[in-house]
């Protein structure tokens, strides 16, 4: 199963780590809880969900669970997945197992994108694939400190590899 394993007491400086349970639920590991809710607050603002952040947080968690399941169904092609936020909404980075651009995955990402847009209209997102690469390469696309890891064991800092 693609659930994340976590080192207890690890200093959290990379992405916010999550635990995906078997009942379509997601939990945040204890030491990341504060950072997660800070992240949700920022992400809600990015998605212009000003009116009810608590309700939005529930939709965002469901969004993460759905994303995790999609990745878990493709363990041979997907290495990890991170969600970041910025002006205009969320960005999902699907890190592929391949070191080359996986053209064959684009159609599946397209279907995922349409599905997520239909089911989670308050979580506007663009979904991108990034070929597997060094930590420096991955970090050139997004900041791990401002991301939530939705799938995969491989982190984005050298000591986590």
């Amino acid at each position: 199963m693609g659930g994340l394993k976590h080192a207890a007491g690890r200093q959290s400086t990379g992405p916010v780590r999550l635990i995906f349970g078997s009942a379509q639920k997601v939990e945040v590991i204890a030491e990341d809880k504060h950072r997660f809710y800070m992240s949700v607050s920022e992400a809600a603002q990015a998605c212009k969900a000003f009116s009810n952040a608590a309700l939005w947080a529930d939709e965002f968690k469901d969004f993460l669970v759905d994303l995790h399941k999609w990745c878990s169904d493709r363990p041979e092609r997907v290495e990890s997945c991170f969600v970041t936020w910025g002006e205009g909404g969320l960005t999902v980075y699907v890190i592929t197992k391949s070191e080359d651009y996986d053209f064959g995955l684009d159609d599946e990402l397209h279907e995922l994108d349409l599905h997520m847009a239909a089911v989670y209209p308050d979580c506007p997102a663009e979904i991108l694939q990034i070929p597997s690469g060094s930590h420096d390469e991955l970090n050139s696309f997004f900041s791990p400190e401002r991301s939530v890891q939705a799938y995969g064991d491989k982190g984005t800092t050298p000591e986590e590899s």
Partner: protein
Amino acid sequence: MGTREQHRKKADRNQAFIDEIRDSKFTEWIAIAVFYKAVHVIEEMLAVSGSHATSHRQRQAILKAKYPEILRPFRTLYNFALVSRYQFRPVKTAQVEMLFHALERLEQLAKLEIEEGSYSG
């Protein structure tokens, strides 16, 4: 906000640049030029319906909502151009060919939309 004609001219100019460099070793720049041609093809199509995007994210949102089949090849061009700008591995000739196929598909679909839009308009 450009007119339909202005976007067509930019698309044609980008194509002329692609033709200049398509046999060169600077394959990452081919990927980028192909993407920017696609942007102007999309903007030309949007201009026909009086629409316009001010950012990559907004352009994708419009395509996702109104033209999902055109987003399909556009996604590949957008995503690949982003990767080619930041990753250190060289872009392969076979990958460039995939981009040309995606651009061709995108142009076919956009042309159909423009023709339908022009007809109904």
